[in-house]
């Protein structure tokens, strides 16, 4: 770079003024480009390509066929590009998304994906890695492959992971969105389905009450119907809820929500649903509505992103009011939405001084009312599960108290 104008020349002279020649030489040395490690670049490229087309692998499989010393050197150089986890006594390395993206983009640009796949094929990897290779092998057209995945009942999480990894090769965005939807739903479903492993016994009457509450017609101008399921810890509240929600979640998982009712489940065990963060709760409601009605999902997702930016930059957002536009646009207002609030005692734990200014329930119930009147979910009804009773902001709360389990049923009840 040479200065081209007198002003620029003066800048350079001013910079150099007072610096001795030795100082300038030292500065030139300091600004020299860093020296790269002494390893064969082509070897590193091969190792990176193997890793980018794999999931978790044993590190020594990445450098097989290399002499011991060189293998160790190469692994030392590339280690920073990997998650390195000891699982079951074995080290497993998984390439990070940044280097993976760079490697896949390079392979695609060079038209070298197929050759790299063939080279990587014999490196043992996990299910997500194998799925990644299948996806990379079929290019952008994955319709037939996904139908096979469905037939084989492939693990949804592995598919989501593989789709996320393979995204830099382009295409498959719709499949990725669907995989995210299914993975999200599966996470909720699995957490409840596990409670049903031994079945629900001795709660038939309570389950019937719940089902009737869900199916009863609601007056869109009246207060939000609320049913409180109460009982001591371990009496089986969550198991009862599981029996209610799992069939709905299964239908939603298969994309069959259609005109029927949908459930939205919020477990206050999760710290993210802090009692002072109703906005996060609204985000979660729209996320799960998007799972039930995927056409609306993308719009809700964009709105959440926008709201987060508004909150970050301005400190506040009108999320619920803006979500109403989407609720109306997708005609969701008239659908029955069953909002299940589980482990409600954790809300009280966040605000233990119940009553008065610190009443933990009031903001929750006001938030529920905003869902109905602000977000426009006219078909909303709420099931609250917790150890104590709940009072509504308006209207009446029905109550379903679970008695202590006795005898043989006690052992079958979970949470």
């Amino acid at each position, binding site marked *: *770079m*040479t*200065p081209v104008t007198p002003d620029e020349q003066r800048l*350079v002279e001013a*910079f*150099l003024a007072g610096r001795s*020649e030795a100082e*300038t*030489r030292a*500065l*030139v040395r*300091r*600004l020299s*480009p*860093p*020296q*790269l*490690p002494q390893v064969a670049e082509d070897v590193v490229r091969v190792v990176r390509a193997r890793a980018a087309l794999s*999931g978790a692998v*044993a590190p020594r499989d990445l450098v097989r066929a290399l002499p011991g*010393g060189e293998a*160790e*050197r190469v*692994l*030392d*150089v*590339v*280690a*920073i590009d990997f*998650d*390195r*986890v*000891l*699982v079951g*006594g*074995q*080290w497993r390395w998984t390439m*990070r*998304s*940044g280097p993976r993206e760079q490697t896949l983009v390079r392979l695609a640009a060079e038209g070298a994906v197929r050759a790299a796949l063939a080279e990587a094929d014999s490196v043992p990897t996990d*299910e*997500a890695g194998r799925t990644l290779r299948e996806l990379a092998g079929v290019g952008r057209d994955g319709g037939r492959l996904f139908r096979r995945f469905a037939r084989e009942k492939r*693990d949804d*999480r*592995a598919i989501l*992971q593989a789709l996320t990894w393979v995204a830099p090769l382009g295409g498959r965005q719709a499949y990725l969105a669907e995989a995210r939807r299914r993975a999200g739903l599966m996470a909720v479903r*699995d957490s409840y389905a*596990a409670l049903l492993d031994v079945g629900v016994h001795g709660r038939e009457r309570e389950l019937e009450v719940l089902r009737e509450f869900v199916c009863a017609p609601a007056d869109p101008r009246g207060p939000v119907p609320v049913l409180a399921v109460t009982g001591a810890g371990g009496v089986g509240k969550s198991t009862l809820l599981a029996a209610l929600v799992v069939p709905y979640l299964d239908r939603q998982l298969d994309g069959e929500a259609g005109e029927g009712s949908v459930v939205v489940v919020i*477990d206050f*065990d*999760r*710290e*993210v649903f*802090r009692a002072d963060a109703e906005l996060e709760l609204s985000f*979660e409601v729209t*996320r799960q509505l998007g799972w039930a009605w995927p056409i609306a999902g993308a719009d809700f997702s964009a709105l959440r992103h926008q709201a*987060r930016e508004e*909150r970050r930059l301005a400190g506040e957002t009108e999320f619920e009011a803006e979500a109403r536009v989407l609720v109306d646009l997708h005609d969701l207002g008239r659908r029955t939405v069953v909002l299940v609030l589980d482990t409600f005692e*954790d809300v009280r734990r966040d605000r233990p001084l119940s009553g008065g200014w610190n009443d933990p329930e009031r903001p929750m119930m006001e938030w529920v009312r905003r869902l109905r009147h602000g977000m426009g979910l006219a078909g909303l009804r709420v099931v609250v599960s917790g150890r104590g009773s709940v009072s509504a902001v308006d209207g009446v709360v029905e109550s379903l108290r679970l008695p202590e389990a006795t005898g043989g049923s006690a052992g079958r009840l979970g*949470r």
Partner: protein
Amino acid sequence: MAAPVDEGRWDPALLALAHAVKLDDPVLVDRVWEPLRLTHGIHLRRDTGADPLEFTAEALTVAEGRGLLRRLAIDLINGDLVLPGFEERLTALLGAAAFNLQSFVNGDFTPKSALVSARRFLDSCDRVCRIDIGGEHRGTGVLVRPTLVATAAHVVQELVRVEGGVMVAVSGSRDALRLTFGYAEDYLPPPAAAPRGAAGPRGAAGPRGAAGLQAVSPLGEAGGVRAVASLGEAGGVRAVSLGEASGPRFDCPTGDRQIGPGEDVRVFEGEVAELHERWLAWCSLPTASERLGLEDVRDIAGITDVDGPWDLALIRLAQPRRGDRRTRLGVQPPGEPFPVHVLHHPGRASGTAEPLLWSIGRLDEQLGAPAVRYLHDANTVAGSSGAPLFDDEWRLVALHQGGGRTLQAVGDAAGVPEQARNRAVPVCRWLAKLDELEDVVPYLQEVGGPAGPRRVVGRRGTQERLWRALREGAPAEDRLLVVRGEPGTGLRFTKRLVGEYVRRHSDGVVVSLDVANALGTDTAGFAEHVAGTLSAELDVSPGAPDRVRDGIAPRLGAVLDGVGGSRAVWLVFEGFDRAGGRQGLDNLLLGLIGALPEYRTVRLVVVSWQQVPPEPYTRSVEDLKPPTAEDVACALVGPGGTPGPDDVAFAEFALGRAQAEHLTGYRAASRAIDLIRAMLKAREVA
């Protein structure tokens, strides 16, 4: 399950030694192995081995081949990582060491734990430096904070002057002043007869563990602490025979040189510490009578406990040293006499300095109430000024100032014992000044590691946060760093920056995970992965996989808090932008954040996470900006330097040129630096 280890691959003696190493605490193993391998360019990593025994056997074999086996073994012993029988097997390999710690008792010194004292002693040696001005030896200094060295003000008095009522460094003084750590002599025992034949399994000739520079001092091996690394690795080493070394050079009876004729004395030249551009952090001159020579060592006229003067200069380094553990200070010494140890570089008649020496004495009188000067009888001479006085616990209690030249015994015989004392300045009098001055953040200009070096441009805000988080007892809000930024702001570089910063300035362990790689598992599985990065196991009951707050988060937190012992554990999570929103991960993180006040050794760095952290942590969020001209200009000045207006203007000019090439963010900054270098190079050639 791991494949069975093929034990036939290893030398049976080394394999037997490996069997006597504790394999169930891999993080502690890392604490020993990682510094050794990084220092000596060894590529063997623990996290590539399928089996701990296999790794250990290979590590011992590599160490043996490099002449580092004794060093590694001692580090393992000191890390409490060995099983019964280890030392016997080691001795069978290496033969008996030439040095054995011995304990003794006399009237002044109570017995102390030998290894603990030895370790502290070596640790203290690592903190003492020789001070030269214009190539001539002037005195001794001691590291009192990671970036601050204390010495007597009269040592550097010719480099300072009063300006506007405060002491400032004179122009050009930074180039004249030189601080050298690790200038010490050491010796090697004569090679023992090889106990197991002349060559090792890989043909290594000579006695095992005693090859080249790696055969560090017996003391170093006994302590097995970082002092050895510094002494051994710092600068060059020259060997002189005892015949060449000038007899007893210290003008007092030493009697401690046990080396016989013909044995090699090695002088480690030490490491010159780079000084901060504004090297004089603070200075308090001696009193006039101290400058001119005290007639009475008990004269404290003109000295107050509030204002001194203290005959103290605090010198600022460009980069911190020993950030892992602070110098221990004895701020409340007992009123009764107690033993003291002085580590110092006395001068020679030739104007050069002695390698590091150790004098023992008693601090037996405190002048003033509260005390403003101490008297001690440890032997010192000119050039010892500014040397640290440690108590028996190796806590720094004072800086040696000066004193009479009369030997105690001579003084006693002459009937003037009261004059046979040296003076020192108590630490407790200037402690507050240390706390006031300490917080100068050391900024990196380059990160290194096996993946190759990389320049650091900007990221000062991140480094300031890291510096705060490094502190012992840092509050929870300082131990959480949420880093966000647009592409080009260096977001993905964060992991590497954290790793290098922590490695350089502490003994913390850093692990990182890309959460976009955790989509194939649930929250419990992810928590197990987090523990797995630390080679730890996490027992998450499969019956209740969704209990985050009560189950997974506290269990993981307990593992993280306990896995590194007292060492800080840094977790870097990245990839949230690619993970597409994982409620379970958010919950887990919020659970950990909520309990951070309890997990005192845990540091969390969360990159590209969009969640709003709970209220006390709102200041833990950093939004990265693209590098500015000032960031580029920082690369033009040395470490610790501050760019001037001309530097910034020049950087702005270069950055503009880079942006004209349609580059933005880090690419533009990097290109600007390349352009500047090219231009300077061209002028140099011209």
